[in-house]
């Protein structure tokens, strides 16, 4: 899932500037599960904005709404009739939701209240970790099911750099060395040979480096393809 983290109240106040009427718009999917922008976070942030703006002497009128998914037209379209009342919409969705809102409602300004951080999962209650970089060319079959593109600080494809020690990355002792994990798992599976072949340079054109990506599935399209 997409994991987000709410921006600080100070930064959000700065973004909102002198707006008087604000709609805080949450999203019921990924950011709800990562406790960054669901209905609960919308409620708390809206209260904070009301209190803080009042204390600062320019009270804002803050309304709240949470849609099931901000990244699909059918879920955000019902918001259309009421958006005209607001100076600004503060979206607590990921960057996709914020852009969907701006694209669908070009006359309104939708600002981001959340930093979209990574594609990952909760490894335990309250801790999320990155797992995928959406590089467009999955190599998990060669790396014992552990992704060095997302989990090695240098995205190495042929084994650990010299900075791996005691199982942790040179960047930070809180980061497990991805190649240590890969090696241990390969040994456990008796598949060390996976790691002995030289992996050629990666085709980064399938990643973001090839420009914004797009998938078209003619079999799923409704337009007249025949």
């Amino acid at each position, binding site marked *: 899932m997409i994991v987000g983290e709410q921006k600080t109240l100070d930064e959000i106040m700065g973004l909102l500037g002198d707006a008087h009427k604000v709609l805080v718009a949450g999203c019921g999917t990924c950011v709800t599960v990562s406790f960054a922008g669901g209905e609960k976070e919308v409620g708390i942030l809206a209260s904070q904005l009301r209190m803080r703006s009042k204390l600062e002497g320019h009270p804002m009128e803050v309304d709240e709404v949470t849609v099931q998914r901000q990244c699909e037209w059918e879920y955000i379209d019902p918001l259309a009739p009421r958006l005209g009342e607001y100076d600004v919409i503060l979206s607590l969705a990921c960057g996709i939701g914020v852009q969907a809102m701006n694209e669908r409602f070009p006359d309104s300004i939708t600002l981001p209240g959340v930093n979209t951080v990574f594609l990952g999962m909760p490894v335990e209650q309250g801790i999320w970790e990155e797992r995928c970089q959406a590089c467009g060319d999955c190599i998990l079959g060669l790396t014992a099911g552990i992704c060095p593109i997302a989990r090695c600080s240098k995205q190495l494809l042929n084994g650990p750099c*010299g*900075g791996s020690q005691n199982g942790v990355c040179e960047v930070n002792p809180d980061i497990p060395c991805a190649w240590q994990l890969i090696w241990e798992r390969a*040994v456990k599976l008796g598949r060390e040979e996976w790691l002995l072949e030289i*992996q050629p340079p990666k085709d980064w054109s399938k990643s973001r480096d090839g420009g914004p990506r797009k998938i078209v599935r003619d079999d799923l399209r409704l337009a007249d393809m025949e």
Partner: protein
Amino acid sequence: MDMTAERTDEYKSGSNLEKILRAGHFAVTGELGPPQGADAEVIHRKAQLLAGVVDAVNITDNQTAVARMSSIASGVLAMQDGLEPVIQMTCRDRNRLAMQSDLMGAYALGARNVLCLTGDHQSFGNHPTAKNVHDLDSIQLIQMVRRMRDEGVFQNGEQIKAGVPRFFIGGAINPFGDPFEFRPYRLAKKIAAGADFVQTQLIYDIPRFREFMKRVVDMGLHEKVYILAGVGPLKSSGMARYMRDQVPGMIVRDEYVDRMKGAIAGIPKEDKKARRKAWREMGIKICIEQIQEIMEIEGVAGIHIMAVEWEAAIKPIVEGAGLLPRPQVE
């Protein structure tokens, strides 16, 4: 047939380092760190301390992710002082286009050795908010340089059009990194990719290095690549402790920390000059002993001396280890 030409053709690059190693001499390389500025004099000053003392000198590439004068430019400046550079190139700062471009430029300017590195993470340096590249990793870089030389092709497979860069190709290995069991295999991968020589991380744990070399020799890798053991003089007990406790990928045995501490026993704390002198003498002494110990280990083809911001230490170390004068190979 012109014998000189035939002889040169046998070499992969014809660099002095290659010739020394091929002739079976115990090689000595040093390290020179470019300045954080554009002053060529800094390079000349350091280079003069090393000329005639080492067979070739590594020129670091934005070492520890701090922006410095380019390794290629610094290497060309050092050549003016009679030094042969080993151009270090990290995967952190360049993509494959920039790397190939710089390799061709460095060769055109006379460089003949290149050392292919992953590069320290930018978070260690003075631009921690920089974007890193890592388009290739160090093994893929070695492979690219080898194919440029041996097949005359760019990374994309296209023919190089005017002049093939023929480098003596180096890599780095860290016998103290983990997973320890994988390290000899990683060396094997570097050899398969095309490494002609490798230099190790600083050694302050000779038993572990010996164990690593045993595995390397058992795999026969020492016959396929020249292995230069990395050493360096400690400057103070504080530095020894710091390297032991704080530097990722390093192991420093307590005996070295203790000996550095012992070096200043009896010298009052206020006498900074005397402490510094005692430390530095001990650092050089330990380094010489280490070289002598390492020279006895099977499979070691030479020594790589890293004296960070202390280039003046290299001559007394090489001399003390009985490795001067350096052999001349034609």
